[in-house]
């Protein structure tokens, strides 16, 4: 296979991965790593390097669209970014030391969990209880619930949310992903933030979190230019198309199909890691 053919196949596959990531709400990173390692036999270090870059691109590319809706909360995002960036430093450091098959195994587990989490019904469980720490840190806001009214919210259980965000950051640095699924646990379930606020704020945070691992990835030689090029462009394009489609499509059935694909990829990664063939 020539370099041109290889790049074109990677471009198309990454486009599909970006599309899948956007439509399932899981993000491109969690899909592109198994595609690269299982389908293209790319070493996992190169795969997570290409994924990390794609994650920064999709997070930044999608942000402009989210901003207009007025759901994201820059204060909550910025405060929690302290946790995710510190976690990312730890995760990226672990990546340079942990053996390949362990990374693959953990990645497989995260895929299985993400598949499950993408199907779970999310329901807002808002409380207006003024949490003293959240008040002091101004972790509150309001979002447009109908065209005329605004719904107020305030974060709950700030330390638990902060702790979970450190875990999300560590997974992001270790696996080169956005770890949307863990961020959702932290923001929806621990901090009781409204669904729309947590998804859009989490998207904002992903780029900053991933940038905290990028320096070490670069110096450790994980960013292979000729591999990253088609992957980053493909995932970015795919996710931009995906988020456009998302507005129109009825996604429930699609989500089930995608969850099954993600589940299968996760199982495959775990099996390959245990066999030592990853």
């Amino acid at each position, binding site marked *: 296979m*020539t*370099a*041109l*053919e290889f*790049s074109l196949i990677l471009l198309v596959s990454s486009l599909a991965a970006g599309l899948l990531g956007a439509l399932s709400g899981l993000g491109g990173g969690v899909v592109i790593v198994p595609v690269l390692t299982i389908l293209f036999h*790319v*070493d*996992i270090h*190169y795969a997570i390097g290409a994924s990390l*870059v794609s994650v*920064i*691109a999709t*997070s*930044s*590319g999608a*942000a*402009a669209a989210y*901003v207009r809706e007025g759901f*994201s*909360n*820059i*204060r909550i995002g*910025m*405060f929690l*970014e*302290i946790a995710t*960036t*510190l976690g*990312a*430093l730890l995760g*990226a*450091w672990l990546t340079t030391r942990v053996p*390949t098959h362990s990374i693959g195994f953990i990645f497989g587990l995260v895929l299985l969990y993400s598949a499950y989490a993408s199907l779970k019904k999310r329901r807002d469980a808002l409380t207006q209880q003024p949490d003293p720490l959240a008040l002091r*840190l*101004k972790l509150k806001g309001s979002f447009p619930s109908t065209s005329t009214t605004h719904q107020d919210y305030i974060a709950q259980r700030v330390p638990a949310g902060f702790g979970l965000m450190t875990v999300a950051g560590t997974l992001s640095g270790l696996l080169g992903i956005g770890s949307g699924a863990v961020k959702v646990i932290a923001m929806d379930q621990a901090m009781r933030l409204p669904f729309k606020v947590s998804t859009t704020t989490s998207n*904002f945070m992903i*780029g*900053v979190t991933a*940038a*905290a*691992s*990028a*320096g*070490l990835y*670069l*110096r*450790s*030689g*994980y*960013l*292979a*230019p*000729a*591999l*990253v*090029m*088609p992957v*980053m*462009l493909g995932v*970015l394009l795919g996710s931009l198309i995906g988020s456009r489609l998302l507005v129109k499509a009825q996604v429930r059935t699609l989500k089930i199909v995608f969850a099954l694909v993600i589940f299968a990829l996760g199982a495959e990664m775990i099996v390959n890691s245990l066999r030592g063939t990853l």
Partner: protein
Amino acid sequence: MNAPTTWNDQRIETWVGVLLRTGVMLAAAIVLTGGILYLAHTPGPRPDYSHFHAEPLQFTQFTSILHGVATLNPESIIMLGLLVLIATPVARVLMCIVGFLFERDRLYVAISAIVLAILLYSLFFYR
């Protein structure tokens, strides 16, 4: 009188959105340019990524990447695009600091400064 009242969170977010979109489009354009040059100059078989050998120093250090760009090395140009991409979220945090300064929110100037410090440390010193 005007500055503090007109700088609200929504305004910061709008600017941040424009910045992120611009950064990612610029990065993608540079990566695409480098990619086209790379493919035009690489007629041979595909590179093998099945075993990890860290990329050469040429592509892992800021100064050598810039040096490669000066000699129009296609892969160095791709790496330059990636550096622009990585710098985009950092610029976003910087822009939030400015926004919070205008809002006179000292607490969030400090919180954003901590995030910026972690990012700069990770980019330049962490190994």
